[in-house]
């Protein structure tokens, strides 16, 4: 029910945006994230962006996983 997935904002007109969701273009509402810009990734739930995805934090989290995986590999 609280399913939400990241999508890339391609264009914005008034309060609505066309976003790329894994190759499919969908129109969503930016009513809950008025500060969102073209090029932002937003987290989309039932046709609304409920938050802007923090790309820096996403990369930092992935870096952490990579370090842990490397450490586990070296232990073997």
């Amino acid at each position, binding site marked *: 029910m*609280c399913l939400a997935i990241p999508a890339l904002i391609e264009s914005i007109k008034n309060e609505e945006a066309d976003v790329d969701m894994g190759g499919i273009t969908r129109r969503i509402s930016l009513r809950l994230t008025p500060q969102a810009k073209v090029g932002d990734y937003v987290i989309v739930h*039932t046709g609304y962006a409920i938050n802007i995805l923090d790309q820096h934090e996403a990369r930092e989290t992935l870096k952490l996983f990579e370090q842990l995986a490397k450490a586990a590999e070296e232990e073997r």
Partner: protein
Amino acid sequence: MKFLSEFRDAGLAKGVVSQIHRRSKTPARFMEFCGGHTATILRYGIRQVLPATIEMLSGPGCPVCVTANADLDKAIALAQMPGVIVTTFGDMLKVPGSHSSLQKIKAEGADVRMVYSTMDAIHIAEENPSKRVVFLGIGFETTAPTVAASILYAEEKYLKNYYVLSTHKLCPPVIKALLASGEVNLDGLICPGHVSAVIGSRAWDFIARDYAIPCVVSGFEPLDVLQCVDMLVTQVEEGNSKVEIAYRRGVRPEGNPEALRLMHEVFEPCPAQWRGMGTIPDSGLKLRSTYQRFDAECAFDIDPGPTREPQGCICGDILRGVKTPLDCRLFGNNCTPEDPVGPCMVSSEGSCATYYLYGRNSGR
């Protein structure tokens, strides 16, 4: 998909899994509040890769599952009124009420329409000025702001035929009720990711403080859940109880202030009836008096008659975490996703449906 598939990488998961095994010494019982997390845990076999010290328990975080029969009956009664179109999300159609379901009455001729977004419901209202269009508002804090937005759209468009039947529920009050009941003992809570995207991780501070239970907000990909479990294990081993975020790309401590502002502009807290948990104070949302003209409860004379609970169904106990779907004698026999008896078998995030699909042998 970017920012999605990377968090499903099995190679990257190995490092976190081995760290969890290395760190976890004390037996610990964690509850994933959200049905979305239950689905991730069972779909990706996360229980099987965790050490024997960790027990996972599913919680009441499935809006479809916790909707009381009395509320479903109201939606069904509305859809049976002449000139009314009832719109709602797909999950709600198959849920059995006391005597029927929205899907059944649709087959019998009622105008019930599944929508992807509340914006679709607004369009239906615009295209059908001679009909009264009711949106069955269901969901937690993730969804309630989108329903609030639809009411504001309706107001701006001068729509006089759009109404909301609000059965929205709030997560912190139900977790509080669950913990206060003393029925389940937890050593850690996996907090809902997209609810927290709206209300912020600070909303869980009271659990860490008042109940001394470690809380970590998690995303919905397998790596997110593993990172969350690792952070909970670390807190348990270090004797901490604080609120942390394992989904930093999506959740901030303060949440989404604009979404919260819209939700509070349109709705105010009210008592709400939860399946399996009874009525919990301030755990629901009703329309504020300023927006009363959009409130289906006020605009229609709804009389669904007495409610009836399904015989033998233990959805209520499952939602409280005191039983699992495997304890139900209807599970997989008389109750299947094709022909569900209780709501937990309907929603894709209901514990019963998830166990039926992925986890019949993994109910540790």
